[in-house]
């Protein structure tokens, strides 16, 4: 996608991200999701209310953001933390290519480790390719693209990316998003729900935004986050000796 340079950056990023101990973390939440779904399926054969809760509440608003947070902040953030990013940046590679390649890896990994498990959980929970299963799957697909842009951006902007990302996902999206209507307009979780609901058409998903609002706002947030990430990376500074 970005030529040889992009492929080299992506290959190194992939190996570094999968090789870290953190990689165990982002397999955990999806595993729990699938296991809980299987357990519920076995104990509640035909009750209709639980699939929405497990897919919408747990899948879209917990598993997806947490997995994207861990992956999105580590594809670039870990290299910034340990300083190895300097080897990459001390070459004439365009900073857009660096962000693009790392963002692409983050999206791909999130799709494998969160979106596919959400689809599997959806198929198990609803007993096939239902509207709910497909809607949540598409919503998660869109969510992984949006969340990773935000989390990659956060990892360039601050050295406390995980903490800031958690604050965003838990406080902004979780608490404020439920209490303040305006916060929903700036919430990636709500965009995913809006997109999911346009297919699922299930009021129990509590989607606050329409499809067009969700798509437009999602595109704007994703593009803005990536532009900020590129600009901040271009100004990447090494710290001097401790004063």
């Amino acid at each position, binding site marked *: 996608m970005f030529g040889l340079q992009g492929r080299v950056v992506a290959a*190194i990023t992939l190996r570094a991200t999968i090789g870290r101990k953190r990689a165990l973390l982002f397999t955990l939440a999806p595993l729990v999701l699938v296991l809980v779904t299987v357990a519920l399926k076995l104990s509640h054969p035909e009750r209709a209310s639980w699939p929405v809760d497990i897919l919408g509440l747990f899948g879209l608003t917990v598993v997806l953001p947490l997995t994207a947070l861990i992956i999105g902040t580590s594809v670039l953030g870990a290299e910034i933390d340990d300083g190895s990013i300097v080897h990459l940046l*001390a070459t*004439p590679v365009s900073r857009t290519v660096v962000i693009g390649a790392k963002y692409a890896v983050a999206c791909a990994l999130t799709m494998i480790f969160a979106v596919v498990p959400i689809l599997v959980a959806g198929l198990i929970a609803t007993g096939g390719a239902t509207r709910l299963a497909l809607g949540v799957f598409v919503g998660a697909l869109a969510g992984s693209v949006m969340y990773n842009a935000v989390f990659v951006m956060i990892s360039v902007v601050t050295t406390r990316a995980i903490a800031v990302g958690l604050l965003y996902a838990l406080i902004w999206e979780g608490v404020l998003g439920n209490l303040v209507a305006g916060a929903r307009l700036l919430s990636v979780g709500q965009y995913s729900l809006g997109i999911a609901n346009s297919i699922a058409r299930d009021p129990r998903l509590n989607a606050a935004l329409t499809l067009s609002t969700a798509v437009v706002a999602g595109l704007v947030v994703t593009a803005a986050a990536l532009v900020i990430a590129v600009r901040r990376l271009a*100004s990447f500074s090494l710290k001097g*000796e401790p004063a």
Partner: protein
Amino acid sequence: MSTIELSHVSRWYGNVVAINDITMTIGAGVTGLLGPNGAGKSTLLHMIAGFLAPSRGELTVAGAASWHNPGIYRVVGLVPERDSVYSFLTGAAFVRATAQLHRLPDPEVATRRAIGIVEMADAQDRRISTYSKGMRQRIKVAAALVHDPPVLLLDEPFNGMDPRQRLHMMDLLHRLGEQGRTILFSSHILEEVERLSGTIQVIVAGRLAASGDFRAIRRLMTSRPHVFMVRTSDDRRLGASLIGRPAVTGVELTGRGLQVRASDYGAFSRELAVLARDQGIRLRELLPADESLESVFAYLVET
């Protein structure tokens, strides 16, 4: 083509001035950037390398500003201080990836050449995580050299190296300098640069304190006044005869021994033993009292 030029460059962090109005030109050959810890060497090197914006002043490498200019890395190779490399890669894979990021026409040939320069061919297929400190440093140099840059910047390249590795690295830097490259490295340990034949720039407290031929500055450093603590079998008698020597400018009897101030390090160290032998005095202990780097550099600032 490969000159580094700084004109009235300053850098501050809030109220703290890290680099204060430095003007200098660094040309082909090996140049050492020396100074105690916290003097601003890294800050200066980071600015030259394009990883920090100068707060004020002009800074160019090969005629172009290095800040916000990734294109500069076509002519600059950087060996960062931190030891973090992609340690899951083999040495060869790391250098090859760098060659590909530079879009070199033949990454394989460039990789082999760079690894040959640092003499790492035997270990190139091992993972970097298995390398010693010196080998890591060399593979970082190979990656920085893979595009054959006319300018090579090294941040504390001798840190943590043993004397043999240090010698090896110094020889390598000299070879590269003789090829007409501009080699700039920083160091806070004077002993590391003993074998250096090029020029040095001494940075103290953010300012350029001394600049010029290394040997001349080295002479200044060894002939500076030294303070020694001497413990002998008869401090008072030795003190009396020491004060008669021209190389000695002061003697004080203290509870811990004899404190001697010498104006000429070399002459004093030669005469002390002869003097003690002639008088039949036994030397028990001889300790330099002010060998801290700060005192060496402070002396340079005064002269």
